[in-house]
Structures are given as structure tokens and as C-alpha cells.
């Protein structure tokens, strides 16, 4: 659909959204045609980094109001053909919509193309956005608040009552979701729309057993329609974090740790089965590329929204269009589904293919610190990222930080100056009787963790926290409380 913003008084028209007419200050309405025809077509035969698959066609679409829009497609058309977006037929279909300056319309388009999407005005909704750490919206660590705002507006348009909507999330273990949501602009959106923001980590949870594994699932999630709203990101540990990864924070901390310990490949398919029907509307308006999923990644400016009922299918298609390898946990959750068999509507996969920067599983924010990640849980991952990112700018010795516990001696062969971060790695190192130059447990005072990490990086030998460090740490904390 082609949208124009038109002045009700003087009929001036814009291709960009504006609030009121720049000339006569008249109110603006959206102008939308009902039918598009192909008014022109060109076949492009030269590749570029952002459009690597050739040949492709660009259609010049024109609606009955005379508004035009270019549209990339791999399919052949003729001038005069009527252009329609086909509605999905399969339950596993993935809809991909390009956002043309209007997220609200893009979400409506996405919902409109999915088979049998209906909302009952009395329905209770749980929106599960991805809000993992305190970061500004531009950093693309968390869901774009504009996306959440538009989604709530669309739900209201469908007649959903605001008292029946909650937005619920918990941050990565070790971070506060209240701080994260506030910095990410999520709290403000909830306030503006009059919906409740709930901290999942506070529970209550209900035990649900599925295929021999017991999950403690957030109770509200079991009794409401879940709208899963992940932000699509690269993830140095998992490959990507998207629709499936976002669901892992619907369980309590213990279950989360257990899922990562047992391996997401094994447990995530069971969680998906244990949850009631989940509908995903994924935020790739910015999305993240590079060393995600936290602030070391960079915005990818993808300008897309993906939607579907099958989270694994959606994640797989995201990998396809981003030209990155589909992670094993996504394959496992999707029963190894061939992406070619997934029905995709709205835009074609080949027409969207655009390589994004992938994450290197060994890199940390500090170039001298490499990570050995042995199926760590989000708590250790978060701790490791926070610590190493605070080392940026310091000159240092080469260090290996070890997180997770799924390893044996062979993983550590040839590596010196290993620092075990988190309780699982420390315990495992003790079990297999391999020495480290330091251990940083999760419950060590935060300032002391940083001091120790700095010493490890900047001094030779095996540094330790001294009593002077402890005093300094206490002083720093006190000072920060006073300034706050």
C-alpha cells in the first residue's frame, strides 16, 4: 500500500509524515489507495553490497490516486499488471514488511497479511518486548520504543482495552529491568498508553512440565495471549537473538540458568511447546549487527518488521535475509525446517538479502581479552560483558575469560592467563583441577570485580584484591550513593 500524508485543507501532499500542513497549518490525513498497478519495470543486472543477488526487478507501482512507489522483486511482471500482496496460507508463514516511515501502518500491514489473525476486544494480552539491559533506544540493545508504542496503538484500534494489556519483561540476570526499561524509553511508552509494565523476575511463576523438563513460567504468560516482540540482533554467544531467545525470559532465573546449562538446543523446543500460542511481531526497524547482543553491537538500520506464529521460522528467515548461519538452537526449535519451505509473504527473501556484520564468538569489547564461552547462562554473559566493556581503553596483557561450565581440559589447551567468571566456570575449574589466575564470582562486590579485572589486565603475575582495594570499593559505593 502506498501512503501519502495529505493536508485536508489545501491538499498538499508529502511522502514523509508531518504533523500539520507547513503552508496552511491544516490537519493531515493519510491517503491510501486500494489498488496498485505496475506502471514501470526495470531489471537490474549489477550487484551492490546491499543488493547482492542479481538480477532483480524494480517495479514502479502506481495506485488509483496517482501515487507511486518503487518495489524490488525477484518476480517478473508486465506493465499494467495489478500488484497485490498475497495473504499467507500457512500457520508457519513469516510476514516481512518494510517500514516506510510509519511503523503503525507497517504493523497493520503485517497483521493483515497473516492468516486468521483476530483480536477479541475482551482479550487479555501480554506483550513481551526484548528489554535486556540499560541502553538508549539508538543503541538497538532493546526493542525500539516507537515499535512498542505503535503496536499498542494498533491493539487499541482492534478494540483491545488498555486495562487488559500488560507489557512484561525481565532483563538479563544481574541487570534491573526497571533501569533498562526506563533508559530504553519503554516505561515512558507504557505510561503514555496507560498500560502496566510488569517485572517478570518478581513472578509469580507456575510449574509446567513438558517432555520431562520442568519450567517455572511467568503465570501471566500462561493466561494471556502472548505477543512476543523481540528485537532482531546478532549475538556473539548464540549467533542471533530474536523471537526464540526472547521467550527464554518468560521463565524464572533458575529455569533460565538450567536451560542454558542443559543447552538451548535441547530445552528451547520444550519451552516453545510448554507456552500457550505465541504470536511474534519482531522489531528489525533498527536491529543490531556486529558484536551483539549488548552495547558492543551496532545498529543495523534494517527498517523491517517480521511477524509470524512460528518463532523458529521467523528467526530462520531473519538469518536468511541477513545472510548469516542459522544457529543450531533455532534449527532445533524448528525441527530442522528447510527455510525454502517456509512461506514468506510481504517481501521476498531473495529480494531482501543483505549481509549484516556477524558477531565473533571469541571477541569481547576489549581487544586483548578473549572469551571462552562454554554454554554460559545470561548472568555470566552479562557479567563478562559488563566487566570487559569497562576495560576499554586500558593497555593490557592478553587474557582469556572463561564463562559457562560445559568444557574439559582440551578447551583450555595452549591458553594462559585464564580468568574464570561466574560461579559455574569457577566450580568446573575446581572440579577438573585446573588453575586460573583469578576467579570472579557473581556475588563479589561489583566495584571489586572491576578493580580485579583492571589489575588482571594491566599487571603481570597473579594480582589479588587487597584490603586497600576493599576500602576504596566501599568509598566508591558510598560516594555514588551520596551523589545519587
Amino acid at each position: 500500500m502506498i501512503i501519502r500524508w495529505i493536508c485536508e485543507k489545501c491538499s498538499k501532499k508529502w511522502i514523509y509524515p508531518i504533523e500539520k500542513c507547513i503552508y496552511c497549518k491544516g490537519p493531515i490525513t493519510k491517503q491510501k489507495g486500494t489498488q496498485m498497478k505496475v506502471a514501470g519495470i526495470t531489471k537490474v543486472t549489477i550487484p551492490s553490497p546491499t543488493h547482492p543477488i542479481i538480477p532483480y526487478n524494480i517495479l514502479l507501482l502506481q495506485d488509483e490516486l496517482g501515487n507511486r512507489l518503487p518495489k524490488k522483486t525477484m518476480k517478473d511482471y508486465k506493465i499494467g499488471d495489478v500488484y497485490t500482496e498475497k495473504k499467507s496460507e500457512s500457520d508457519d508463514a513469516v510476514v516481512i514488511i518494510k517500514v516506510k516511515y510509519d511503523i503503525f501502518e507497517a504493523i497493520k500491514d503485517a497483521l493483515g497479511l497473516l492468516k486468521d489473525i483476530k483480536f477479541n476486544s475482551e482479550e487479555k494480552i501480554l506483550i513481551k518486548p526484548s528489554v535486556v539491559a540499560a541502553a538508549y533506544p539508538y543503541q538497538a540493545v532493546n526493542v525500539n520504543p516507537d515499535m512498542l508504542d505503535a503496536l499498542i496503538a494498533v491493539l487499541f484500534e482492534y478494540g483491545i482495552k488498555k486495562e487488559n494489556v500488560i507489557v512484561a519483561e525481565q532483563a538479563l540476570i544481574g541487570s534491573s529491568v526497571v533501569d533498562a526499561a526506563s533508559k530504553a524509553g519503554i516505561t515512558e511508552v507504557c505510561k503514555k498508553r496507560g498500560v502496566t509494565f510488569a517485572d517478570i523476575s518478581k513472578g509469580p511463576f507456575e510449574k509446567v512440565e513438558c517432555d520431562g523438563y520442568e519450567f517455572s513460567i511467568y503465570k501471566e504468560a500462561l493466561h494471556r495471549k502472548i505477543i512476543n516482540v523481540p528485537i532482531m540482533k546478532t549475538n556473539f554467544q548464540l549467533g542471533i537473538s530474536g523471537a526464540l531467545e526472547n521467550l527464554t525470559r518468560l521463565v524464572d532465573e533458575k529455569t533460565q540458568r538450567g536451560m542454558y546449562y542443559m543447552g538451548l538446543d535441547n530445552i528451547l523446543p520444550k519451552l516453545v511447546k510448554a507456552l500457550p500460542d505465541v504470536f511474534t511481531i519482531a522489531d528489525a526497524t533498527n536491529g543490531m549487527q556486529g558484536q551483539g547482543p549488548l552495547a558492543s553491537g551496532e545498529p543495523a538500520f534494517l527498517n523491517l518488521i517480521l511477524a509470524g506464529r512460528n518463532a523458529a521460522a521467523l528467526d530462520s528467515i531473519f538469518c536468511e535475509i541477513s545472510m548469516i548461519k542459522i544457529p543450531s538452537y533455532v534449527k532445533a526449535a524448528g525441527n530442522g525446517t528447510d527455510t525454502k519451505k517456509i512461506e514468506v509473504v510481504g517481501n521476498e527473501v531473495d529480494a531482501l538479502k543483505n549481509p549484516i556484520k556477524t558477531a565473533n564468538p571469541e571477541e569481547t569489547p576489549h581487544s586483548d581479552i578473549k572469551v571462552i564461552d562454554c554454554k554460559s547462562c545470561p548472568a555470566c554473559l552479562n557479567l563478562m560483558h559488563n566487566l570487559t566493556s569497562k576495560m576499554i581503553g586500558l593497555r593490557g596483557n592478553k587474557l582469556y575469560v572463561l564463562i559457562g561450565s560445559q568444557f574439559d581440559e582440551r578447551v583450555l589447551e595452549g591458553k594462559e592467563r585464564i580468568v574464570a567468571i561466574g560461579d559455574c566456570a569457577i566450580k568446573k575449574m575446581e572440579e577438573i583441577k585446573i588453575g586460573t589466575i583469578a576467579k570472579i564470582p557473581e556475588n563479589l562486590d561489583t566495584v571489586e570485580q572491576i578493580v580485579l579485572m583492571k589489575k588482571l589486565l594491566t599487571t603481570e603475575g597473579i594480582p589479588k584484591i587487597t584490603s586497600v582495594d576493599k576500602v576504596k570499593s566501599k568509598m566508591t559505593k558510598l560516594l555514588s550513593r551520596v551523589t545519587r
Partner: protein
Amino acid sequence: MYVKGVGMTKFGAQTDTSQKLVYEATMEALGDSNTKIDEIDAIVSSIVDSESNGERQRGFSSIISSIFKRKVPIVTCSAVCGGGGAALWTANKLDYNNILVVGVERLLTNNSAVTTNEILMAAERIYEQTEGMIFPAQNALVAQQYMLKYGATADDFALVAYKNHQNAFLNPKARFYRKEVTLKQIKKSPMVASPLRLFDCSLSVNGAAAAIITKDETDIKIMGSSLFVDRLSTFESEDMTSWQASVLAAGESYKQAGVSPNNIDVVEVHDAFTPVEIISYEDLGFCKRGEGKNLIRKGITNLNGKLPVNPSGGLKAKGHPISATGIAQIYELVKQMRREAGDRQVSNANIALAQNIGGAGSTVSVHILGKV
């Protein structure tokens, strides 16, 4: 204002830095005008700030200051492919006696896919870049609309390419100097974005061009100077086959110069793609709407025709180093009016017109020069 002197590098694949190219073009312009660098009161430059060429260099005004050791007002204006013309238009508005106008670009420096991607940044981000609307595609859709509306054919476009290649054959500073290109080669060249073939597209090259303009009377007067800016995306225009910024700029320049299209003796137009030259014939008023194709079919715009267009070889065959192009057009027209164009000299070149376009009809400058 008057043009005192001009200079330009050869347009090609040289590996010189932007600094070196600016230096070379400017030294020629200073020599041509018999001006000393310390007589320059202000400088207007144009460059696109490419990343693909490895220079990754902003703050070009200060670099120019370093090259010429001049602490005078220096402004850099960027209007993508229309930057050179925009720089000249800006300079013409300034109240200084001697102004150096210089444009430079290093575009032939990376693999073509990367360069294509860099140029794509000049297209609208949400509506065009995401849809793969590289510049040949934008212009292909315009060409197709023109063909449907006025019955022009791909053969007409080929004639434009052929004419400009014949002219460039005679221009020692052109990328295709002494390189013969046949009509058959043009028509058989690979399709880039249908209906546009490789030979319908201008050449990415490196180069710089400079002009010194002055308040003092010289042999070349700037009779008209105008610049208009329109939308970025062609699909936003009601009529994609006529570019309003071009029509407005031409009208304004004719008015300032007190001349009509009939008075123009020689023209340099912005033939970034061959159909653009034909549409420009119409937008500049050299013929009625839909009749541009007849000008090329009848040879009117050939070197020996009634209205020679792009005697330099144009962007098509001389080359198109983005921000240098608009000033290189002035170089050519000055040479023509001074009867210094050698083998490609046209007859009776007394009033000349240059049209420089940024984007697909987005920023257009039109300059009319007259021999005093």
C-alpha cells in the same frame, strides 16, 4: 561576474590523491587566468566525501587552505553530481573580486559494486535505497516512462552515446580520448538496468576541474546563473519525464541573460545517462516536449550540428567525477568560446549553456556564458 581562467585534470583512472588533483586543476586555472594564488579572495569547493575511495576525509575546505596556504573564506558545497554547478552558483553570489571554484572526486578507486553502493547513498534511503534503486535503475524507470509517453527508443539513447563518444575521441582530457566506440558496440553492450545498457551510463572516473571567476571584465561573462532544488525521488514528481528543477533553472538563467534557447550556440548537459540528455533538450527549451529524440535523430546536437551538445564527450565519454563535473562543463565551454577546443571546436560559439544535475533531477544549476 566573469570567468578569468579554467583548468582541469585529465579524467581517468589515475591514482592521485584529491589534494594532488585539486592542485593540478587549480594550477592550470591560475596559469590560464594569469592570476597569482595570493590574489584569490575566496574559494568555493565541491567534493562528496567518499568513503569507498579510502580517503575518508571531511573538512575539505581546510585541506584546500593547506594546499594553497590561503587563509580566506573557503566553503565546500555538496550537491552530489550537481556539486560543481552548485559551487559555481554559490561563488557567483559572493562579494569577492577573485574566487577560485574547484571540484574534485576520486570515484574510480574501488570495485564497482562498492562504488555503486556509495553512489546509492544519493538515493532516498527508505523508498529507494532499500528497493535497490541504484542510479541506473532510477534513470531506467524515467527512460521507460519517456519511451512510453513519447515513443523514443533504445536506438535514440544509443545515438546519444555514440555522439558523445565521437566527441570524447577528440578530447585529450576525456577518459575515452582516442578510443573508438561503434554504434554496434553500444547497442550490444550488456544491459545494466533495462532499458539502459552499459553504454547508456556515464563513466566513473577520477579528476578535478577549476575555474577562477572575477568581478573584473574578461572575455567570458557569466550572463545567467541559477540553481533550483526539487524532490530527491523521481517517483514523487507528477511527471517523471520532465525535471522541474531543470525547467526552472533554465528559465531563470535565460531571463538573467536576456536570451532565449534559440540564442544558445553550444551546450554541455548532464548526460549521466543517455535519456537524461534527451529529456534535458526539452527541459532546457531546445525543442517541444517529446521532440528531444528528433534532435538526436537529425544530428542537430552533433559536433557539426546546429546546436552542438556535449562537445567534450559529456559525462558519458569524457567521464563523470561527481563534484568536478559541473566545473569541467565550464572548462569546455570557455575553451569553445575562446576557440581553443582543438579538433572538437564548434563554430560560432558565442553564447554557451551548462546544465549540471545532482540526483535524478533533484539539484539543477544552469549557467549561461557569453563571449564578450
